[in-house]
C-alpha cells in the first residue's frame, strides 16, 4: 500500500462483461436469447471511499459484485487488484479472497444455521492460515470491530438467536476477519429492520474512514447511496447509465432513468414531483439496439432507438450515458471513468 493521501485504487474493473444465454421452453422452442447481465462496466474501488451502485432488480448490480469477488466468471474484461492484472478466465485464488470479501443481502441465508457464530468466524480464519491458538482472539477482535460487544456474548450464539442487524454485523465481521482491503456489500440493509439500517450504514462508513477499506455498496435505495457514498453509479440493464462523484447525481440527475428512480422514492416533502410520478412505465423491455432505456424513456428520440449513446461529461466527475447531453460535444468521455481523484480529497463530510 502506497501513500495514504493519494487514495490509491484497490480494485479496478475494466470492461467487465457477463452474458447469459437463456432458453425459454415452450414458447419459441429453444430459441436462445442473450441476456447481457453486465455489459462493459468499468469501475474503480478506491481506498477509504464508498462507491455505491444503484439500480432496480435485474440491473446486473449483484452479478457485478459477484464478478468483483470472482465468484462469477466474467465473459470478458479484466480485474486489476493492486496493480496486478487478472484475466477474465483466471481461477479465484485464496489470496484474492483474502483481499476482496463479499457481504450478502440476507444474513440468515448467508450464515450456517446449525453452527455457532464462533464457527462462522473461525473457519475462514483457519482456511486463511491463522494459527489455531489465535483463532479465539481474532474472532473476538472481529466482533469488536463491528461493535458487537462484549464479543463473548455473541460467539456461542446460533444465527437464529440474533436479530437481523446483529447477524448482519456478524457477516460483516466474518468478511473483515481475513483483513481484506476491499469490502463488497450487496444490499446489506435491504432485509433489515428500518431502525438498524442506519447502524449498518454508519458501520460501513466507519470502516471506510477509520480503517481505509475500499467499499462497494450495492443498493436499490438511492437515498441511502446518497447518505453513504463518495461516488454513485447508476446501473440499468447491465450498463452504467450515470455516475458522479459525491451526491451530484442525486441532487441534479441528468439521465432520465436516474430521474425516474429519484421520482419514485416516496418523498412527502416534495409536492412538485407528483406529476412526474404518475407517469407509468409498465414495460420492462430492454432494447437490443440503441439505448437500452429508450423503450421506457419519456424523452426518447430517434437517435436513441438506433444507436447506443456514448458517455457525456455533464459536470465535474459527473458522466451521463444519454443522448440528451450530446449538445456538449466536447464532453464526450473516452472511457466511462472519472479522472483520478484530487489528492487528499476529504472522505469525511
Amino acid at each position: 500500500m502506497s501513500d495514504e493521501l493519494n487514495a490509491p485504487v484497490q480494485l479496478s474493473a475494466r470492461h467487465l462483461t457477463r452474458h447469459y444465454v437463456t432458453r425459454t421452453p415452450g414458447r419459441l422452442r429453444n430459441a436462445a436469447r442473450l441476456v447481457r447481465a453486465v455489459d462493459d462496466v468499468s469501475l474503480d474501488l478506491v481506498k477509504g471511499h464508498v462507491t455505491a451502485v444503484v439500480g432496480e432488480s435485474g440491473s446486473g448490480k449483484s452479478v457485478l459484485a459477484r464478478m468483483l469477488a470472482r465468484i462469477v466468471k466474467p465473459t470478458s474484461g479484466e480485474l486489476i487488484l493492486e496493480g496486478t492484472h487478472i484475466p477474465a478466465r483466471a481461477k479465484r485464488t485464496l489470496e484474492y479472497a483474502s483481499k476482496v470479501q463479499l457481504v450478502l443481502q440476507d444474513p440468515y441465508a448467508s450464515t450456517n444455521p446449525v453452527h455457532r457464530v464462533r464457527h462462522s468466524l473461525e473457519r475462514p480464519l483457519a482456511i486463511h492460515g491463522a494459527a489455531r491458538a489465535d483463532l479465539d482472539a481474532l474472532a473476538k477482535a472481529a466482533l469488536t470491530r463491528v461493535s458487537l460487544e462484549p464479543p463473548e456474548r455473541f460467539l456461542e450464539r446460533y444465527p437464529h438467536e440474533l436479530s437481523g442487524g446483529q447477524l448482519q454485523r456478524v457477516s460483516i465481521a466474518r468478511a473483515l476477519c481475513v483483513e481484506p482491503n476491499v469490502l463488497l456489500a450487496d444490499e446489506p440493509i435491504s432485509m433489515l429492520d428500518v431502525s438498524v439500517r442506519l447502524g449498518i450504514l454508519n458501520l460501513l462508513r466507519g470502516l471506510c474512514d477509520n480503517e481505509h477499506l475500499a467499499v462497494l455498496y450495492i443498493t436499490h435505495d438511492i437515498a441511502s447511496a446518497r447518505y453513504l457514498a463518495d461516488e454513485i453509479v447508476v446501473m440499468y440493464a447491465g450498463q452504467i447509465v450515470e455516475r458522479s462523484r459525491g451526491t451530484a447525481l442525486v441532487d441534479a440527475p441528468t439521465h432520465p432513468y436516474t430521474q425516474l428512480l429519484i421520482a419514485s422514492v416516496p418523498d412527502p416533502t416534495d409536492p412538485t414531483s407528483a406529476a412526474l410520478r404518475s407517469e407509468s412505465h409498465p414495460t420492462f423491455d430492454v432494447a437490443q439496439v440503441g439505448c437500452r432505456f429508450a423503450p421506457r424513456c419519456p424523452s426518447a428520440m430517434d437517435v436513441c432507438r438506433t444507436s447506443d449513446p456514448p458517455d457525456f461529461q455533464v459536470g465535474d466527475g459527473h458522466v451521463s450515458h444519454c443522448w440528451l447531453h450530446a449538445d456538449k460535444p466536447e464532453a464526450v468521455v473516452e472511457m466511462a471513468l472519472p479522472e483520478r481523484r484530487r489528492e487528499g480529497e476529504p472522505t469525511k463530510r
Partner: protein
Amino acid sequence: MTDPLPVREGPEPDDVAIDASVAHANPEFVLEVKDFCVDYGVGAQMVRAVNEVSFDLRRSSVLGVAGESGSGKSTLVYAMTRLLRAPGVISGGSATLNITGDDGTDVTPVDLVRANEKQLRKVRWSHVSIVIQSALSALNPVLRIGREFDEVLKTHRPEMKKVERRERAVALLGMVGLDADRLDRYPHELSGGQRQRIMIALALALDPELVIMDEPTTALDVVTQREIINQLYELRTRFGFAMIFITHDLSLLVELADEIAVMYAGQIVERARATELYDAPRHPYTLGLLNSFPPLHGARRELTGIPGSPPDLSDLPAGCNFASRCPFVMDRCRREEPPLMALGTSERRVACWLHASDAESPVPVELSRLPRTNNDAAPSEGVAS
C-alpha cells in the same frame, strides 16, 4: 384448493351468532377494533404480541400501520381476520366488521373474533380481503393465473357462468394494468411487480369493503413500488374500499394513508392524520422512525436512527416500553406506563408522558413542531394525477 387464503388458525372460540355478538353498529365505520389482544403461546411462555389495540376505520379511508418487525403490526391484522395460526391466540377484545348487504343499505355488524368458520367464510374475500407481502408464496405455483381467479369466483359467485368469470378476470387484470394474456401464465413467468398486481386484482375480485395490505411493496424496487402505489390510489378512489396498509416505510404511508398508527411492542404509541404525523411527530419513537430514512435533499449529516433494539416481549420493562431507547426519557417513564392519551382537543393520540397535562418538563422542540398549514402535500393531492 378453493381458497388460496390460509384458513388454519388458533383455537376456535365458541360459536356465537353474528347479530347477537354486537349490539350497536356504527355504519360510518367499516371496522371497529376494541381492546384487541393477541398472545403467542399460553401459560408461562406466553408472549403478548398485540396489547389492547383499539381503532376505528372509516369507510373508504386508509389507515397506515407502521413499526419495526416484531411490533405486532402483522399479527394484529392476521389475528383480526382470523388468519393467525397457532400458537397465536386472540386473548381479548373485539374486531367488529360492519358489512353492508347486497342492496348496499343494510349494515350488519360481525364480530370477527367470535365468528365461526361458516360466518368467516361468508365474510372473507367478499367483505375483507388481504394482500400479503410475498406474492410468490401466495399464488399456487402449479396453477395458471386464470385458475386462481376462476376458483374464487366459482366459490363465492356460483351463479356466474364460465364465460362471465373469464370476463371478470380480464376486467380485474385490466384494473391493475395487466393484459389478459397473463391469465394463461404461471406465477414463475411473471415479475415480482406483476405478481403483486395479480394479488391486488384477486383481492378486489369480489368488491370487498376492506382490503388489508401487509407490506405489499416491500419486496419490490422503488419504481415498481411507485407504480403499484399509484394504481392502488386510483383503485381506491374508483371503488371506495377502505384499506389497512402495513409497512415500515413511513414516508410511503404519508402519501397513501389518511391516518397513521405507529406500533411499538404490540401497542399503538401514536395515531394521527398522515401529514400531521410526518410534519409534527409527537412520540419519540415516531421521530426515530422518521429519522431512520436518509433524506434525498439537504445537507448530508450523520443520522443515528433509533439506538438499541426492540424490547423482549416476554420480559417487558415496567413503565414505558420505549424508555430504554428514548432520548427524552424521564423518571416517570420507567415507573408508569403511559396510556394512549388525546393531545389537547385534537383527534391525535399519543402514548408518551412528555405530552401529559401534568408533565414535569417542557416538550422537547423536536416533538413540538407545528404541522404544515398549506395543503400542497396532503395525501389526497399527493399522488393524484
